[in-house]
């Protein structure tokens, strides 16, 4: 089965700035693919190339098996797009815009439209100029989600939505996935990506720095292990264990930073020393991304709202 989106070595220059510098991206059918990266890293540029709005200066890209630049109009029958910056016609109503975009894509299902309008609590009879930012975003979302297309291209679709509406979006996206649709989801909201995405790609300065399932990515970083031992060991000694990056004393406890792949091994050693209390904390998504965005390793366990596994002794 060929991937829905396949880009290899994409290059895009705007004058002297290089927006994309050899970007590779693969999105398989039926998956929600998170697309993450710092501001200005090239997410929207990639998406515009995928939509045939920009022409790549180098590299190779196929979308649903066709060339997005050459076959743009045909391809657009099979996808719906929510732009990062939703600008609407100020003197049209939201309902008119939804109908227009839907009809251009080949028809609107009135039932689905009504259902989405209700779910997003959007008044379709208001002029677009009088919508708030979140409501403009909702217009674009309803227009995209109400069309029956196999691919959704979403560039920061929830920017400006309140948490309640974000939840509605999550539910709709989950439904779309159940129906076998593919989605490319660019976002800065990590919890959203964590909940919705099967796989993620992280882009920095126009290149993919990491791609895979969240579990894969987590694997590459460090977990924090904090233990009270009945048979204490000096931090200097613990730091010698394989997979341990650093060790220190913290309020009478031993605090270790451990390669996530070596956690099991370290726990065995701690077990031998008699564990009284143990906290083992995988890196939070924030930490994962911070490390990728900034290109420096960040140790897990520095954040208080992280998922914690308390293991009683």
């Amino acid at each position, binding site marked *: 089965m060929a991937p829905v989106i396949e880009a290899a070595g994409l290059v895009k220059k705007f004058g002297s700035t290089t927006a994309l510098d050899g970007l590779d991206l693969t999105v398989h059918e039926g998956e929600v693919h998170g697309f993450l990266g710092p501001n200005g890293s090239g997410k929207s540029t990639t998406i*515009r190339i995928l*939509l*045939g*709005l*920009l*022409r790549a200066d180098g590299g190779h890209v196929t979308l649903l098996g066709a060339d997005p630049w050459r076959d*743009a*109009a*045909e391809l*657009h*029958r099979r*996808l719906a*797009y929510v*732009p990062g*910056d*939703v*600008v*609407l*016609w*100020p*003197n*049209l*109503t939201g*309902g*008119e*815009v*939804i*109908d*227009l*975009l839907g*009809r*251009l*894509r*080949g028809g609107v299902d009135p039932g689905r439209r009504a259902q989405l309008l209700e779910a997003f609590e959007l*008044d*379709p*009879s*208001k*002029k677009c*100029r*009088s919508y708030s930012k979140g409501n403009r975003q909702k217009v*674009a979302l309803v227009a995209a989600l109400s069309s029956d297309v196999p691919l959704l*291209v979403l560039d920061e679709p929830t920017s400006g939505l309140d948490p309640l509406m974000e939840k509605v979006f999550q539910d709709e996206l989950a439904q779309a996935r159940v129906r076998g649709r593919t989605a490319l989801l660019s976002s800065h909201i990590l919890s959203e990506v964590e909940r919705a995405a099967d796989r993620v790609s992280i882009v920095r300065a126009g290149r993919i720095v990491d791609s895979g399932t969240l579990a894969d990515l987590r694997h590459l970083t460090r977990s924090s292990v904090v233990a009270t031992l009945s048979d204490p060991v000096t931090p200097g000694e613990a730091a010698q264990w394989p997979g341990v990056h650093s060790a220190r004393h913290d309020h009478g406890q031993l605090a270790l930073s451990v390669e996530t792949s070596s956690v099991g091994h370290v726990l065995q050693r701690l077990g031998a020393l008699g564990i009284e209390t143990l906290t083992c904390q995988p890196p939070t998504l924030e930490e994962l991304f911070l490390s990728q965005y900034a290109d420096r390793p960040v140790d897990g366990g520095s954040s208080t709202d992280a998922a914690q596994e308390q293991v009683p002794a």
Partner: protein
Amino acid sequence: MSSLAGTTTLLRLAWRRDRWVVSACVVALVATAYGSMAATRDLYPTDAAAAAGAAAMTDNASLTAMYGPLPALTTAGVGVLKTVMFGSLFSAFLAFAIVRRHTRTEEEEGRLELLAAGAVGRRAATASAVLLASLAVVATALLSALSLVATGVGVSGSLALGVVVVVAGLVMTGVTAVAVQLTSTTRGAGGIAVGVLGLAYVVRALADTSTGAVRQLAWLSFLGWAEKVSPFGENRFWLVLPALAATAALLLAADRLLQRRDLGAGLWAPRPGPATAHPRLASPRGLAWRLQRGSLLGWSVGYAVLGLVVGGVARSVDQIAQDPAVEDMLRRMSGGQGTLLDVFLGTELRFLAVGAGAYGVATALRLRSEESSGRAEALLATPVRRAQWLASHGVLAVAGSAWLMVVAGVTVGLSASAAGDVGVVQVVAAAVATVPAVLVCVGLALLLFGLVPHWSAAAWGALALFVMLGELGAILRLPQSVLGLSPFDHLGSLPGGDANVTGLLGLGVAAVATAAVGVLAFRRRDLA
């Protein structure tokens, strides 16, 4: 925080953004004033020569309708005639463009919000825009006065021309300041302000070509005040006083409105509309029509009114003494053939054609504003083809501007034929014959949009150049090869004379070729 806080900062920002365009406009007008005066002095070295050569101008209705009455039958009076109306309109447009750009446009695009959240008072944006416009107007006035002095004509008349520029520019500053408070859209504000300017022009044209009490109606129009300053004639400097009073009143009104409304809003709140789209709103064409039908309606009404006015003036042309010298001069001025009436109608239709060109350029350049705002992106991510989207506005520009010339032809023809002697069909044919030149303007706009999108607005510069060449090219004795750059130079002399068939065909080819290159280039470029 004072409501004016940040005005100077905004003024500096506005100047930074606009300094080149504003300077270029000021220089263009000053050069025009200087050029026509210098050329007239070459043509008529003495007042006696001017009196002999230009006697016909004094009671020529067509010239009066267009430029206002001749201030004096002297060399300087003849040399300043066109500059009075040209300078008034130019100064008014400059003021309008500056004020609107730094108030309503900024607000509509949300940039003002960014500033208003900083240490910028509520009145600062309007105040800085009004200041910049006034400074530009006053600079234009001073420099054009100086440039006239440099040609060796009298100082007081030269200063009076400066007053003309100030009167028109300042009042239009006030008019625009009010207009931008009324609606929440840039386009709507433009419609109101330009509508007022157009009304002022029509009122004074009607008044100037009438007799008796109606003549006094010119006092209702601020362009009437500007022309009644009468440089090198009466030199009514005091007319700057009513202009200042009117400007102050308008600015006060604008300020009251500004205090009453919210940022981003107009005085008229937007009403809710239909929750579902009309069945016709299902294609790029449907959308383009929906977006632009209001403007076409406005232009059509304006053209119908202008056509009736021009036709009405034409009736009085016949009453001019059939002095062969008069006819000869008019012909040389317009290159027309046929009766004096034909020449007059031909000249007026050519003016209306330039206006239709402006409509075509504005309509075609909607493509650019749709693109730069990001709205085109939403459309072109649907199965709409690029050429199809471009055509949706392009066809409207072509058909709309041609339609305007038909409206002009029919209304001018009907109203002029009431006096007899004029066939409606001939007038309509003459109006339609200008369409190829109008379409070259549209083609040029499409060409720029396709090839160099960031420079699309240069289409306006081209149109302004065509107007300059047509109006002043002959006076400045420019060679035919330069005059021929304007598509409006190849129209032949209809009604009454011969159509320039090869010229019209050439224009048609140029229009099609430029548009085609524009479409091809747009299909190959990035959306930017």
